[in-house]
């Protein structure tokens, strides 16, 4: 019975003129987005790998110089992205893909792909995820809004209800038929997209590509189910197909179009993050003042006195190490808590903004899906934070190694320890710093971060199903007057 209803519903939908042009538009946009994603993936990965290789080679081949100068010369971290990053670019285009790692300074990521695009990018990135998030619900609505309301208007609903068909069977049958019509359009595109990405190479960033793809399918499936059952519910309740369409398109515009833009603004008002200039000014000021209000110079003076006492000397030349290098490393360590405090504050603000946006998913399921999608694609805040952490760890170790080497190696240069001892190191010394490696958050961490959003999507689809059930049980052959 349910199969019969589903088959009839499917045949009716695909024979309708609506189906052809709606399907054509969706296929065109989705394929374009997936193809564009594949192109970006190939180009990005090639650039990232080449750039990282070049940066590593430049570090080693920077020419013989003082190790501390070498730390100033620095190194670059280029963020690797897996194939899913091109299904859903997440925050990558806005958060930056490259970090310059140098002595004395912790830097933000630079090279934001969004900065290189035209004004059209304001409408969002053309990716498989953004097209699906926007058009999957619209496809469901446009193919399904007549499910009950259209039959009621044309009078076939009377005939159907006179047959003694249980309303629940009508609901499941129509749900399956509509789902099949939607999948016939969407699935082939996704398969083509997946094959294209597979031919480009499938190294994952964060591991568990299969699990990630399965969970993405689950999340987008739930998202589609939410709109499918809402469509059937509204169609069953509405007085006319026109009313059903208006209500559904209204909700679609709210959830998939308006809220993704507004949620960002709301979250920024709730948890402001500083502008770049303000941030830098405040951090420099704090650095100058000293972490706890005692300036770094004052602390260095005390440290120097302490060392003099410890070794019973009163000249830096008499210390058993090269004071200039130890002093610079000490300065790094004094600045570190200032950096940490300011960068952490920004990160906390971003995390708080993300939490606000996730909570708004209660009103708009698109927001919950968007988070799950970027989270599983490895392009969320979680991955960006880890990228920055890894770069900072690398930077600290690089600087400490260079200063540490200098502190020892320059001590008895020229047979004496002199405050002005200036040594030259070569590639062998620079090789003490291993090449930069980004260790993305594990699959488990990515999933754990998205559990609340997945639960929210599940709750949304249950509520939509309940709404549809309630509407269909009370199904009337005539519109309520």
């Amino acid at each position, binding site marked *: 019975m349910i199969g019969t209803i589903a088959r*009839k519903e499917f045949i009716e939908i695909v024979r309708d003129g609506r189906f052809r042009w709606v399907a054509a538009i969706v296929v065109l946009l989705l394929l374009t987005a997936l193809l564009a994603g594949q192109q970006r993936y190939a180009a990005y990965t090639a650039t990232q790998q080449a750039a990282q290789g070049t940066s590593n080679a430049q570090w080693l081949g920077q020419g013989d110089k003082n190790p501390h100068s070498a730390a100033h010369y620095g190194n670059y971290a280029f963020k690797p992205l897996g194939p899913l990053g091109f299904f859903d670019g997440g925050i990558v285009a806005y958060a930056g893909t490259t970090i310059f790692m140098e002595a004395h300074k912790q830097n933000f990521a630079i090279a934001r792909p969004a900065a290189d695009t035209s004004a059209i990018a304001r409408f969002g990135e053309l990716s498989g995820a953004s097209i699906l998030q926007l058009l999957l619900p619209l496809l469901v609505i446009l193919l399904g809004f007549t499910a009950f309301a259209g039959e009621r208007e044309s009078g*076939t609903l009377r005939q159907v209800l*006179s*047959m003694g068909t249980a309303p629940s069977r009508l609901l499941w049958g129509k749900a399956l038929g509509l789902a099949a019509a939607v999948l016939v359009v969407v699935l082939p595109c996704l398969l083509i997209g997946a094959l294209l990405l597979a031919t480009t190479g499938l190294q994952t960033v964060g591991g568990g590509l299969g699990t990630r793809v399965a969970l993405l399918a689950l999340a987008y499936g739930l998202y589609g189910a939410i709109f499918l059952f809402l469509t059937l519910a509204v169609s069953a309740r509405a007085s006319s197909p026109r009313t059903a369409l208006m209500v559904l398109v209204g909700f679609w515009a709210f959830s998939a179009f308006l809220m993704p833009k507004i949620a960002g603004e709301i979250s920024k008002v709730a948890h402001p993050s500083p502008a770049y200039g303000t941030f830098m000014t405040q951090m420099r000021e704090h650095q100058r003042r000293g972490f706890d209000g005692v300036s770094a110079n004052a602390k260095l003076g005390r440290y120097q006195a302490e060392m003099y006492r410890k070794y019973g000397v009163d000249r830096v030349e008499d210390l058993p190490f090269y004071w200039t290098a130890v002093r610079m490393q000490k300065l790094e360590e004094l600045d570190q808590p200032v950096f940490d405090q300011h960068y952490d504050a920004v990160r906390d603000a971003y995390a708080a903004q993300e939490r606000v946006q996730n909570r708004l998913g209660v009103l708009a399921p698109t927001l919950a899906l968007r988070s799950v999608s970027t989270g599983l694609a490895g392009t969320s805040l979680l991955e960006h934070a880890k990228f920055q952490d890894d770069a900072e760890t690398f930077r600290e170790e690089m600087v400490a190694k260079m200063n540490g080497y200098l502190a020892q190696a320059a001590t008895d240069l020229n047979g004496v320890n002199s405050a002005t001892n200036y040594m030259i190191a070569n590639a062998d010394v620079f090789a003490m710093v291993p090449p930069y490696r980004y260790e993305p958050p594990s699959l488990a961490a990515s999933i754990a971060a998205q559990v609340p959003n997945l639960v929210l999507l599940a709750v949304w689809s249950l509520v939509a199903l309940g709404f549809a059930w309630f509407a269909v049980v009370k199904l009337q052959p005539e519109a309520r007057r």
Partner: protein
Amino acid sequence: MLQALELTRTFGDHTALQGLNLRVERGDIYCLLGANGAGKTTTINLFLNFVRPTSGSARVNGIDVVEQPLETKRHLAYIPEHVMLYGNLTGLENLRYFARLGGHNEYSAADLQGFLDRVGLQRDAASQRVRTYSKGMRQKVGVAIALAKRAGALLLDEPTSGLDPKASNEFSELLLQLKAEGAAILMATHDLFRAKETGTRIGIMKQGRLVQELSTDEVSHADLERIYLEHMH
């Protein structure tokens, strides 16, 4: 088979049906006559449970239609004044769909074609989309749907209005066959001639009340018309 017990339905101040008592047994063709708004369609809607009774009850096979709407509908076939079908499906596909909704999965394509033959739908029309059908052709598919349901009781709401005389005559022949097979038929109609020809009993309704019941073998055409018109004044 069909039974109305003090069946009453009011819409606000308006009484659509007032204390209707009615029995239609197997082999009966009961014709409801009356002006538009007399309560004929309301009576049929009450049997289909499309409208809830304000008081009283409608029963099919002794079962209350409000208490067991799905069970009672299994015994009912319904043909409205305008049979509405899916325009993007063919006549045969429409018939198959509704037959299955009615719980009849067993029909082969030949069986279904047999029903369409029996109601006189041209062979080549069966595989055309219903969108291209005339009203008469749609009514025929509607009758085929009712036949395929093999229901004990038929509810017909002016099924022949708008049909040409030949189609109307064929429809009457079909009703007589169904009657012979033991169906209980309740038909709302404006056609006094056909009511007298094919009906076994006649009920005249006015302003929601059943004002007179008679057997068709007791009255002539002329008497029936006179009695009907007297009630209408």
